[in-house]
């Protein structure tokens, strides 16, 4: 409480006076707490909750940058302008859909905020921990300064970086196949839900069906 008040006072004095490190922490705290509030909001139905949480994630993450970093320098150079645009669109849509689904797997987790670290000038890491019923997950947000304000460009869950994980898959895919195939595949994955996830929702007592449910196409491997 006192920390929040002093932070508020410092912010009132003008953003230049608040060290960027604290700004980074405040940024993550604000957005994560907002998201948690929405998740626990009983007045909204499930779809509305998901929508809100996805909106928050759009503000929290620089999604187009994540798309670019995930694809990686080697591949980005090989795409033309139209392909880059298309890739970014598909990546952003996929990430948002994936985030929205994760919302369904959460029940009453708590989040603990730890101390941010400046890894290099203008790059920050904000560690948090998600306390679920039987595990603690470490979620580490990586932030940079965009026009002077912090924004996240990656998140690591127990050491697993979203950018690197997608990157590894793109590397693997593009080793054998072409860019157009990748784009087609990403478009084909769609925003529907596998039946298993619907079952999980029923288990958690969430009765509303999710629209756009689609049968899973082709298994990996």
């Amino acid at each position: 409480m006192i920390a929040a008040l002093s932070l508020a006072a410092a912010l009132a004095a003008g953003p230049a006076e608040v060290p960027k490190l604290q700004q980074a922490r405040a940024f993550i705290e604000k957005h994560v707490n907002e998201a948690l509030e929405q998740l626990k909001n009983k007045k909204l139905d499930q779809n509305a909750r998901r929508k809100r949480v996805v909106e928050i994630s759009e503000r929290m993450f620089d999604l187009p940058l994540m798309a670019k970093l995930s694809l990686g320098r080697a591949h980005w150079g090989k795409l033309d302008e139209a392909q880059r645009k298309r890739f970014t669109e598909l990546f952003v849509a996929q990430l948002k859909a994936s985030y929205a689904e994760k919302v369904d797997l959460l029940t009453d987790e708590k989040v603990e905020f730890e101390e941010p670290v400046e890894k290099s000038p203008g790059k920050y890491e904000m560690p948090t921990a998600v306390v679920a019923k039987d595990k603690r997950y470490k979620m580490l947000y990586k932030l940079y300064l965009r026009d002077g304000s912090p924004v996240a460009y990656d998140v690591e869950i127990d050491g697993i970086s979203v950018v690197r994980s997608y990157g590894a898959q793109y590397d693997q895919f593009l080793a054998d196949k072409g860019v157009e195939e990748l784009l087609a595949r990403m478009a084909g994955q769609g925003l529907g839900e596998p039946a298993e996830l619907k079952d999980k929702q029923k288990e958690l007592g969430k009765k509303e069906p999710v629209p756009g449910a689609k049968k899973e196409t082709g298994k990996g491997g």
Partner: protein
Amino acid sequence: MGRALWLGIALASALLVPARAAELEEGTPPAAAEFDEFAEFETEGSTRAVTSFDPLRGYNRFMFRVNDKFYFWLAKPLARGYGWLVPQPARTAVNRAYTNLRFPLRFVNCLLQWKPKKAGSELGRFLVNSTAGLGGLFDPADRWLGWRAPGDEDFGQTMGRWGVGDGFPVVLPILGQTNLRDGLGLTPGFLLNPVWYLADFETNFAVSAGEQFNYVSLHVGEYESIKKDALDPYTFIRDAYKQHRDKKIKD
């Protein structure tokens, strides 16, 4: 005999690969200003994907598919049935009890990595939770004393800490993704798990299987979610596992 020798050589050479020998692919050199972003964001030089050294890929992919079927056809339906019968708080308590039992494994590995503070923390938690926590079903050490569980240590991490490389990815039947080093580390891990000394082999096996089963019942939906997100679930899990283990070793 010949095969055992081959395996021995492969093991020895794979384990001698230092832990950080990730293979990075050099892309086309940046030309335009937009490539500055890549330079800016590539920190430790290993932002790019982890090694794609996967000599057992054919076997791994096959076993991945087998495990996938096992999960959907057997493990999951049974775990869900169990989940309907047994309320979640009870299953969570059971999970805690099993976790508590793995204290010797964690403790020994904390010592082997010379982490006395962590070892002390494990010991304290074990004593409190086994007694006041009714055989580990509850976690008063955390709730009442604030002694949070430090990260789990195991033999794979100990070896990693000592500089042993992870070798290459291996997918084990049912147990799933691991790598050469961690897979080998499972054996001493079994020897230190009290579950295997309770009674006869069948009982011990059942108790151990019960643990996995209980765990699955608490985490239904996660694998499906991963599969949905991933372009190629096999690659995703393989590389995510490596990232995760590399991080745990550093901690």
